[in-house]
């Protein structure tokens, strides 16, 4: 029958119109796929990634910064948005070994494409992906060029946004610390034994 499709379409409209008042599945929020952002916000999945940030241990972003300025992320970054300048002096890392640190660490987030290759290649767990997405700024250049100070975020923050990943990293680093301490103790014992041997 000519016009059947039109009537079917109108019936669909009518069903949805009435359904929005009486359909229990729609009234209690199930089956609704949209939310009233920004008043309402859905919880982000744990894996969500936006832009990278730098991790530091403890409370001092300068002293605890994990980055040792090895330039791997700078070289691997597909759109080349990372700029690193190595320091001239060294500071001790979490196991006490002296390491370089970045004198300059800039990420141009207007170029960054959130691919997290930098996170995958970092051997020091120093860079991770943030979940912050409301980042608009009226400053086209400096506002989107994030420096070391803006990028540095604490390990507690990392634990809060990516709990599973942070637990894995923390455990691995704790093991590394234990191994480093054991090695240091063994070396100290060796040195002590050698000193004792020499004095006898």
């Amino acid at each position, binding site marked *: 029958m*000519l*016009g*059947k*499709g*039109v009537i*079917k*379409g109108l019936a*669909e*409209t009518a069903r949805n119109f009435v359904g929005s008042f009486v359909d229990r599945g729609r009234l209690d929020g199930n089956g609704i*796929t949209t939310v009233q952002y920004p008043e309402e916000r859905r919880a982000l*999945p*744990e*894996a*969500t*990634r936006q832009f990278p940030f730098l991790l530091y241990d403890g409370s001092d972003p300068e002293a605890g910064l994990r980055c040792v300025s090895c330039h*791997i992320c700078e070289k*691997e*970054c*597909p759109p080349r948005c990372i700029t690193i300048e190595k320091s001239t002096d060294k500071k001790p890392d979490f196991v006490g070994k002296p390491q370089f640190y970045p004198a300059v660490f800039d990420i141009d987030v207007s170029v960054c*494409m*959130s*691919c*997290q*290759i930098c996170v*995958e*290649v970092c051997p020091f767990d120093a860079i991770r*992906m943030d979940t912050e997405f409301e980042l608009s700024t009226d400053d086209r250049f400096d506002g989107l060029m994030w420096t070391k100070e803006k990028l540095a975020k604490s390990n507690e923050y990392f634990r809060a946004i990516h709990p599973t990943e942070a637990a894995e990293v923390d455990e691995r680093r704790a093991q590394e610390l234990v191994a480093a301490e054991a090695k240091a103790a063994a070396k100290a014992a060796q040195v002590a034994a050698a000193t004792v041997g020499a004095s006898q």
Partner: protein
Amino acid sequence: MTSLAVAEVEIANAAAPSGIMEVAVGPHHPSAHGVFRMDVQLDGERVVRLKPVFGYLHRNHEKIAETCSYLGSIPYTDRLDYLCSMTNNWGYALAVEALAGIVVPERADYIRVIVGELTRLQNHTAAIGFLVQDMGASGTPLMYAFREREKILDLFESLSGARMMCNYMRFGGVRVDCSPEWLEEAQHVVAGFPRFLDEFERLISGNEILMARTQGVGVLSRELAINAGVTGVMLRATGVNYDLRKVDSYGIYGRFTFRVPLGEHGDVYDRYMLRVLEMRESLKILEQALTGIPVGAIMDPKTKLRGLRPKVGEAYGRIESPKGELGFYLISDGTANPYRYRVRPPSLINLTVLEDMCLGQNLADAIVTLGSIDIVMGEVDR
């Protein structure tokens, strides 16, 4: 064509002496599916010549990949056909695996099939939604399709961290493992999908406006389709049984039972129906893959992601992406960057037959025909 669309076409040469009018549809036309222009010569409403003009979105994809490491190219492949980043990763990963002789663990192969078929579902929902939108059904069918697509994008986000630019697969496996909860959620989405398809088909498939606008429109002959190298739904709508999942059985597709739906007329309606039927077949594959997924490793332990230097040689990896045969051709000279990197984009090659499908038809039908090709300009222009 609606009056609004007529108002938006730029009249380039209104009064040609022969009575032929030349109209440039696009590149900012809402039905152009991206920045794409059709230079159309019209005799009244009838198309007598059609010249596709593209390149507005060219961004040196292949040259950039030749300056990047093998790992660094993966996020760029996401941005080819930006609706189907997962399958783009897959095609590239297959090419590098063939080049470097990498074997993928079984679980990773299963995860690839799962996300690949989910990608096919969400691409086809978007494709038929936009196709119906091009015919003037603005709103309802597209929103229904997008509501369902969103559930699959949520799955992608909780797995890979991003809805569309997933950057998920790696040569040698996949980046992160999927949790049992994720598989359960995926099963839930797959189980709910036929309900959407039934609802959509009840609303649209038998609709007389849809049939009047699509049946016998944009007919592509079997000979031309084969000669022009057209692949995917476009080719199968003409009745040619060619699906790389069956022909190549890449990955572990040989283990699943599914059928390849074929059309017979090669018109827009066949392409629409084929997409719907393909989604139903994808659901069958997904059900089998989600129940059969084994435990185990997700990455080949011997594969070095950073600083991969395959031995000198060349390789071609191809998959049946939702749009057709997506191939990556790589030549290695033994260094950390590919010497040559070439993409065989299904969208571009399917687009080349646009003029042949549109000649002698009304301009409004040319818009619908373009919509039925299912192009993404990110892949056409690269």
